[in-house]
């Protein structure tokens, strides 16, 4: 099944005014500390790094660890002066990588 992400941006953004970005990605965030039904340790499988770029420039990033819930949800504020493209990247264990891009629509 393809990886899914849900990203919420305001419908119209005003130049220079802060706006909220919300991003969720479907991921189990297995801690590596749990055991399965057979008693064997479930291998760690985490999203390690989240990056948000505005036209290629890094504007927000986060390092995620074992205490973060499944389907990690991040909400943060940005300010932009001109329309552009906003991209989101999640990277993690087992070669996990997911990318989403959205246009920034100005009012």
């Amino acid at each position: 099944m393809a990886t899914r992400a849900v990203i919420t941006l305001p419908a119209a953004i005003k130049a220079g005014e802060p706006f909220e970005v919300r991003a969720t990605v479907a991921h189990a965030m297995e801690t590596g500390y749990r055991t399965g039904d057979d008693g064997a340790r479930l291998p760690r499988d985490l999203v390690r790094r989240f990056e948000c770029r505005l036209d290629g420039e890094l504007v927000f990033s986060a390092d995620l660890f074992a205490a973060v819930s499944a389907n990690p949800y991040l909400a943060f504020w940005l300010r932009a002066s001109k329309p552009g493209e906003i991209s989101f990247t999640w990277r993690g264990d087992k070669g996990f990588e997911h990318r989403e891009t959205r246009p920034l629509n100005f009012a």
Partner: protein
Amino acid sequence: MRAWLLLVVALVAHADERRSGRDTMSPALRTLQADDAQHPAQLALALGRELWREGARSCASCHGEPEKLRGAATRYPAWDHGLVDLPGRIQRCRVRHQGQLAWPPEAEPLLALTALVAQQSRGLPLTPPRGPELDAAAKRGRSLYMTRTGALNLSCAQCHDERASLRLGGSLIPQGHVDDYPVYRLEWQALGSLQRRLRGCLNGVRARVPEWDSAELLELETYLARRSAGMAMQPPGVRP
């Protein structure tokens, strides 16, 4: 006149007694459920929409847009050659009309489609159907609800009727209404069906846990739907 007044007062008092689980949660959780941009089931709903139009004999090829199923989720469990709840109906559709293998219980795609269909009935009152078979099932469900079970020797009613709104450890005991299923339970970190909730409860009182889609679970679901009849649905719910 006085009799009418008494009747009205009695009806109002009765209406006030039932509280949905979503109204007794913390304000933070209520916001989480009320705001679609924060709702943790959004990923599942997105998957549901994807699956809705997947394949040659997709859900969309018969039912059209999911929005056309507004109200469908209010009418379960139903009787159709046996008791069937909403996930059960989706499984039957998949096997009979799409010619696919049934999903295992609580499979992610099954919950996603259930959530998508249930979401269309937001704001509508639960109207479980009637009928001789359903009445009999609800009756058996009610006796299951009232019967003490498990090593802790507790019935559903002892917690969810007699001790509702008190606390079990730190957690509030809800009245056990079924108006928001499937729910995204934060403890599960996933969507789950009403059957999962019931099995969890039975496991909690250390009773024998019935099989998925067993007669006991479906009868309990039938009774619970009638117990919550008339309450407005807001699925998918969020629960602690």
